[in-house]
């Protein structure tokens, strides 16, 4: 069961599927056009299958990929890159709570873009900033408003005033005929 819900497996499987589709599409083109896509896609497809196996083993082991032992000391001090040890007092989420939070992050992105699409860039941006900073992260109203105002002022002066760019007006306004 854990194999089916593992994000890692899903991603690897998706890779395989995508390349299968690409190969099938490519074979539909005339010989000259399909040569290079096939030269690339076929080996990669095989590699993706191998990768699926590799990831399967990783999930089996419990999602801890075997780290390559790089014993050589580098002259340039690289901080131990993966801050795996939760030495700090940051909340360490795990399991479903972590996944929910990830989906949350994704939702914010999607939500912002949807807002831009429908409400237009100006309203979406201001709305997003206010909701994110104040409601989600519980910063004070004062900070929220000042920060939003400064950012918006910069955007407006640089883009609308100087560059006269077309900031997307939003579908709703188009529909309402404004």
């Amino acid at each position: 069961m854990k194999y089916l819900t593992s994000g890692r497996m899903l991603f690897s499987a998706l890779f395989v599927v995508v390349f299968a589709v690409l190969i099938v599409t490519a074979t539909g083109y005339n010989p000259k056009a399909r040569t290079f896509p096939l030269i690339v896609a076929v080996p990669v497809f095989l590699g993706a299958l191998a990768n699926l196996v590799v990831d399967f083993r990783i999930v089996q082991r419990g999602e801890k990929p075997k780290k390559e032992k790089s014993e050589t000391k580098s002259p340039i001090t690289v901080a131990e890159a993966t801050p795996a040890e939760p030495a700090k007092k940051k909340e360490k989420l795990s399991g479903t709570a972590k996944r929910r939070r990830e989906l949350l992050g994704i939702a914010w992105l999607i939500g912002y873009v949807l807002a831009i699409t429908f409400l237009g860039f100006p309203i979406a941006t201001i709305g997003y900033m206010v909701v994110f900073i104040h409601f989600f992260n519980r910063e004070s109203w004062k900070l929220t408003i000042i920060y939003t105002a400064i950012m918006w002022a910069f955007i407006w002066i640089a883009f609308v005033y100087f560059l006269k760019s077309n900031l997307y007006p939003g579908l709703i306004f188009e529909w309402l005929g404004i």
Partner: protein
Amino acid sequence: MLEAMWSGLTQVLSFPALGLMLLGIPIGLIIGAIPGLGGNLGLALLIPFTYGMSPIAGFSLLFGMHSVVQTGGPMSSILFNAPGTGPSAADCLDGFPMAQQGKAGRAIGAALVSSIAGSIIGAIGMAILIPFVRPLILAFSPAEFFMMAILGITFIALVSGNSLLKGLLIGGLGLMMAFIGMDPITGVARFTYGQLWLFDGVKLVPIVIGLFAGSETISMILKGGSIVEGDVQVGNDVFDGVKDVFRNWWLVLRCGIIGYVIGLMPGLGGEVSAWVTYGHAAQSSKHPETFGKGNVQGVIAPAVAIHSKEGGALVPTLAFGVPGSSAMAILLGAFLVLGLQPGPAMLKEHLDVVWAMFWVVIIANIIGAMALLAVAKYLTLLTVLRSSLIVPFIMVFVMLGSYLTSNSITDLAITVAFSIIGYAMKKFDYPRAPLVLSLVLGGIAEKNLQMSLQLWGASFLTRPITFVLLILTILSVAYPVWRAINKKNGKPEVAA
């Protein structure tokens, strides 16, 4: 010639030229730093203002702006993992990890001084080598471009970090994405599935912004905190970064030359110079595995190259009237407005203008870099800003930049999609750099291969320069394999 040099210098340092240059510099820095705004847009906007100006004044404005665009680019790459310009994406790979380790100041310092170094190398190349460079430019044909692109693609192995298999897969994905669109050679619209906006292929900027910066925002919402993990003092190591550039002077020189030569070849572009030098730096380092984790050399190499490349691009533009890059094509128009005709005639009659350009490029870069160095410490504060404030900042600029690339709302969807994909890639140990590398180089490789075959058939491999590049490519692939085999056999690692 010395009088021309001196004359050019004095004219640049006098008003109105100096004032115009000072006006162009902040414009260029900002355009460079904001993802999605390209230097070409800035040029297109400024050129109408140059009507009626004297040549040197006009160039001070245009070059003052243009030379520093690539100085601003690495700033966002380092601070937010959001490349301000296409070529500065290579600086994300090591610049952002450095910022995460609290070393943003050092990275910025290194990038800025590299900018100065790169522009000096490029400017010297331009001014001094113009008379000799004609045969060199004419020696490179699609065959050589193809081999160079292939050589660059082999660097995928170097930027894959620990997961070579996954790196190759991602590299393959990038190549497939490079094939999307209407292939000019066969006229077949590949992998477009009927979507018109895919006709010209995928756009690099929305993808890279989402892949690197958008995915970071998801991470940050997940774990809160700030870009820097942990409590670290930031901003005190800017001077360390400056020193790093001097310490690595040999790398700087090599990358400057590579960038300059790539700039000489019209059609290769800044991204190629950035990635090829990045790969070269990784390859020639004793510890290639540290690249991608915060090795300052990975910041220096591309930063130098993207500037020396500009100097290189000026050469065919001035010497032949053939633009060395899309920005140069626009500048050619500016030349005419200002009453100059690029070509051998100009080199004879207006030598002082050529030297003036030389000086503007160098001086503008010095001023621009110094200005940023002065505020570098404050820029690094952005990395300790808590997520509730920095995330919206990044997200807004990411979306803004992505939309402004071509005024198209579908680009936003692409950015979101790749933010999610990028996040997944990070989580599941897929390296992201190979995607950008192969996306940039894949198109160049295939196109030039087709052209070479059309022109000469398979014998194009026997052309001298092509053959040399072929050998280099084979070596570049064989060497890490050989090293890996040696390691497995228990031999102590042979010093590179």
